[in-house]
């Protein structure tokens, strides 16, 4: 565990800002993510993203969240109601992020706690998906993002949560883009073999949008760059 007392705080209302930013990014990128998946997979990922966000809207409406933990719970339950393998894996990933908030729901995690939650989520995804780094899956962009986040926090005690999340986002986007150079070994894209070369992995791209949304939720801009997802 990273030392938590010295870790910079994420802003109050981070759960809400993170989830709503992510919702907008996913809805905005759904067509492009679906297109990537059609070129190197089974083509259902765009539909799965849209279905998950529809479930999220329903969850937010039915039971409006009031804490970081509740916002992330609405998100993870939305994904668990989606088919394919992306639904359950993203669902379990966000469940680990939800656990970073306390049960009473009064606090948001520190940047270091958020990094630990991302790492727990990665471990869960790997446990269920049996993927290794480099297999062209969602963890290819997650793993370097966590490393960059932790390195930024450890390098300088004055680093803010937003600065560290910017480092994580840059690493995630670079790694997601680089998956175009690899051949899939796990996930549905593995069935098409070399045909997946030249195509960014949609799971890795979506995960980079998650990190970008955390940054944009933390800095209050709500703006995530989607232009590279194609």
């Amino acid at each position: 565990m990273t030392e938590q007392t010295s870790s910079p705080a994420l802003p109050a209302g981070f759960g809400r800002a993170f989830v709503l930013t992510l919702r907008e990014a996913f809805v905005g990128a759904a067509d492009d993510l679906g297109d990537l998946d059609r070129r190197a997979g089974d083509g259902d990922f765009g539909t799965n993203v849209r279905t998950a966000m529809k479930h999220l809207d329903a969850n937010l409406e039915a039971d409006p969240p009031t804490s970081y933990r509740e916002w992330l719970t609405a998100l993870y339950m939305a994904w668990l109601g989606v088919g394919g393998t992306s639904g359950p894996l993203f669902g379990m990933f966000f469940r680990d992020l939800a656990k970073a908030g306390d049960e009473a729901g009064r606090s948001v995690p520190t940047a270091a706690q958020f990094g630990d939650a991302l790492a727990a989520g990665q471990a869960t995804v790997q446990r269920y998906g049996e993927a290794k780094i480099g297999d062209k899956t969602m963890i290819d962009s997650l793993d370097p993002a966590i490393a960059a986040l932790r390195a930024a926090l450890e390098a300088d005690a004055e680093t803010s949560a937003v600065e560290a999340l910017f480092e994580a986002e840059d690493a995630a986007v670079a790694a997601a883009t680089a998956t175009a150079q690899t051949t899939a070994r796990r996930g549905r894209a593995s069935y098409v073999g070399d045909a997946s070369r030249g195509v960014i992995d949609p799971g890795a791209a979506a995960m980079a949008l998650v990190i970008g949304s955390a940054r944009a939720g933390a800095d209050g801009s709500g703006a995530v760059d989607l232009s590279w997802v194609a």
Partner: protein
Amino acid sequence: MRRSIVNDPEDLVPEALEGLVLSHPRLLELEAEHRFITRKEPARDKVGLVSGGGSGHEPLHAGFVGTGMLDVAVAGAVFASPTALQVLAATKAADAGRGVVQIVKNYTGDVLNFRIAGEISGDDAIDTEIVLVDDDIATDSGEDGPGRRGTAATVIVEKVCGAAAEEGAGLADVAAIGRRVATSARTMSLALAAGTHPGDDRPQFDLGDDEIELGVGIHGERAAKRASFTDANGLTDLLLEPLLSELDLSRGDEVLAIVNGLGSTYPLELQLVARALHHRLGDAGIEIGRSLVGPYVTSLDMHGVSITLMPLDDELRRLWDAPVRTPALTW
């Protein structure tokens, strides 16, 4: 051109579940939101049994909900796993305070969603055990892969676990007897023609008039092998040969046999296979002590048959013979 009796294909599964429950109002109840079927009168003080998977295999699984078998069956779309959220709700519904055994056919999506549902059920202090059914010897291709598929042996696992749970066995014991069945039962299938997805007008694959698909799965996927079409006795031999080399049966053994129709195989055809099976095993000194002949685990309207064999002992025979009352299996 194949036509289907459907309304909107999107509504096929929920409408079919509703039809099943309307037909068995004293036995079953539908939870429409998460698409699972429960017993009308939930059992008390016993280990719960939940199963489920993609639709298109009827009467599996919902047809086996009732006394002596499943408590809950959850349905995905045709040939697609129910979501983790559905399985979670179904698992919770199956719990009567003594834990839940999840009976899962070995397919990547089903295994993933049931495992996840089991893990999250732990938040509510529900203990779960998974029994994985992987009886299809056609997919026994070594260590590095998803492993053998789960097919008709699922019926035996659901029946035997159901009986054990009804007798009051604990969670670990119900799971253990289910795993014993899964370890010892094996299945081999063949198809003369593929099934057709509801709303489609073409079957999932085409076969020549002189060909059969040997080792076919229950999701319309092609088999690794093609063989020449032949008569009922010859087709039975094609299924029996790999089963006998896998099962290590010897003279004097007793087995449970399922001669299973894959969808559009009619009873006369299945009875010819059952006849040939009795004669062949009889010649080898193996007795079919118990059997089922009929469509139990189907693949839409696939024209084909599978044979499942499991060595019987006193415990398995007793649990198989225990009373059962479900839409598809009653004695």
